[in-house]
């Protein structure tokens, strides 16, 4: 019998991967894992899904007071609250999905060591869960629009592209760190640090234009700079101009992070069951 008649060949030397076919066959698992996490998330809580709104809302208020009222940073005539919300929403999405994705493999360790399925489904589905939160948090944005009687313009139709960029960044870093976490549990401690630190070095509480000169190119290496700028540009209309060069740098960084994360994940995933 020729080997072509077999559907699956397991051979460490010659990788004949059914990666795409497997992903398609296991598409239901994306749905069910995300669905499980969403269902479980707010079980035995009183406020339930309201937490998806309360948490970012509190941070938005605090940031508005610190950066707008106390530090009196410029906002180009836009209410500071609007400025902060447009930055906080993508940041919260990144922080949640990156944190969840990083821990996802360890949290599902028994599944990894007992069942076969494309491993990448696990971190991806935790990003999907945070994506649902992102959609819910747009309710905040709408509320603030109504409060300030602000009407966004045609820039808004480009928002999905920036959401996509945010997904790329969180998945890329999520793949990388979740895979590293399997071997080095230190990342359990590194991740909260990155998230906390990142909140202050990303332009969440202030405009990117606060950073000037050549420093801004260095600053743009942070992919979230591009994401947040993009969100502000599309959510707040013509009040913000998008700095094309810094945005390009951020965008390229996002893609690089995704490629590195994805490739690293694919390279080490076959050892997960042995070392987790």
């Amino acid at each position, binding site marked *: 019998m020729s080997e072509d008649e077999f559907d699956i060949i*397991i051979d*460490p030397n010659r990788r004949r991967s059914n990666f795409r076919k497997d992903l398609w066959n296991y598409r239901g698992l994306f749905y069910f894992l995300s669905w499980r996490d969403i269902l*479980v998330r707010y079980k035995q809580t009183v406020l339930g899904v309201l937490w998806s709104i309360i948490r970012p809302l509190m941070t938005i208020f605090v940031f508005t007071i610190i950066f707008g009222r106390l530090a009196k940073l410029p906002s180009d005539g836009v209410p500071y609250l609007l400025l902060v919300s447009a930055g906080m929403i993508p940041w919260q999405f990144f922080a949640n999905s990156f944190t969840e994705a990083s821990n996802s493999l360890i949290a599902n360790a028994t599944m990894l060591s007992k*069942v076969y399925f494309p491993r990448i489904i696990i971190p991806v589905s935790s990003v999907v869960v945070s994506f649902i939160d992102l959609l819910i948090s747009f309710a905040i944005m709408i509320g603030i629009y109504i409060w300030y009687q602000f009407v966004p313009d045609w820039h808004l139709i480009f928002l999905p592209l920036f959401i996509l960029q945010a997904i790329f960044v969180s998945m890329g870093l999520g793949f990388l760190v979740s895979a590293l976490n399997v071997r080095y549990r230190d990342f359990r401690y590194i991740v909260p640090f990155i998230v906390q630190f990142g909140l202050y070095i990303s332009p969440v509480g202030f405009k990117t234009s606060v950073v000037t000169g050549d420093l801004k190119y260095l600053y743009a290496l942070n992919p979230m700079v591009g994401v947040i700028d993009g969100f502000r540009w599309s959510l707040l209309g013509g009040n913000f101009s998008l700095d094309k060069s810094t945005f390009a740098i951020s965008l390229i960084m996002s893609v690089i992070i995704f490629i590195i994360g994805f490739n690293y994940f694919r390279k080490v995933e076959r*050892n997960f069951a042995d070392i987790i």
Partner: protein
Amino acid sequence: MSVVIRVENLTKKYILRHEAGHSYVALRDVISGSVKRAIKKEKTRVTKEEFYALNDVSFELKKGERVGVIGRNGAGKSTLLKVLSRITEPTTGRVSLKGRVASLLEVGTGFHPELTGRENIFLNGSILGMRKQEIRRKFDEIVDFAEVEKFLDTPVKRYSSGMYVRLAFAVAAHLEPEILIVDEVLAVGDAEFQKKCLGKMNDVSKSDGRTVIFVSHNMGAINALCSSAILLDKGRIKANGNTEMITGMYFGGGFAEEGEFIVGKAGNHEKVIIEKAILRNDKGTALNNFQFGESISVEVELNSLEEFEKPYLWLGIKNGRGPVTAATAMVDGFRPDKFVKGKNIVKCTFLNAPLMPGQYSINMGIRASDGLTLITESKDVAIFSISTVLSEVGLNGGLADTLASDTVSPVIPYEWEFEGNKKYKFDIKNYVK
């Protein structure tokens, strides 16, 4: 029938690090280790030991075959299943699989305690590789099998452990893969449910022509379900073939140097328990390795739960191809007067057994005085090998050592003649010391 699983020279090597007390490495150790090494220029003290969980394992399975994998703890059974299920990758070697593969290495993988029975059926089904429509179609059947209708909308954390296991197995039992890989999952659950599960697995493989690989320590289950068996020992295939013979080897204690085999209770309905079997040579030494033409005596210790008048006994020798010879009371008419309640010892010697080199097992059974009622089933009680070098007894064929036990065991005296050639005479008397 077509081959659906082909395993070629499969090896899985683990490297054991003796320094690390943790199951995982901390980044600190990696960094500090390399810094230390850079400064002191000393070689790392970490002792690494290679461990072969699987070592050059090869076999083939045809469509519809049901094979049992047995062996002691640490023999490599679970590793084999993990490699076949693509959970872990082999170090070398290759596996070819045809068709959808589903593996059940644990019941209830991915079950979430906070979710209800209904939700977990969908979740677990999709983790095991079922499509949504497939789960929906089988939903009622699953619920029925698990007997949890009333608790479908209760979180499984409130289930009794029995209900939990039933539900989990029910989902897996309704998978429809071409190849089903099952680890020791039947060890959980009560006897009634185990029986039901075995029945289900039997139906699945027999009626639908599915290939099943089944790991268990329960030889009864293996005997009932499997058409053949593989005995693993220290990562290698020790024996491969007929289920009863292989489980017999396992029962016999396997590979002890001495010829003493603890057998013990096999079922709940046995009235006579075969406690122990001892193999001895004609000097009375207990051993499990004999020479061609040596007398092999089998001493069996029986624990009879009641008295039996004039029972029938038989003791047979088998190899991988089946029965070789037997001493059968139904044929020879020898009958013990009475089994007393408690300990009874029966001894039978195969005189100058003309057995070719190879592995053999001994099976036995007992019937009541009517000759029909089975007191204890025929089962394997001991194994032994014959290790004579054939050329030393005048058998010089090129393939003698590989073929002899399968084709000419036992061998009786015979003579070849061909015009113009010298006669060839094989006579045991010439070789037996």
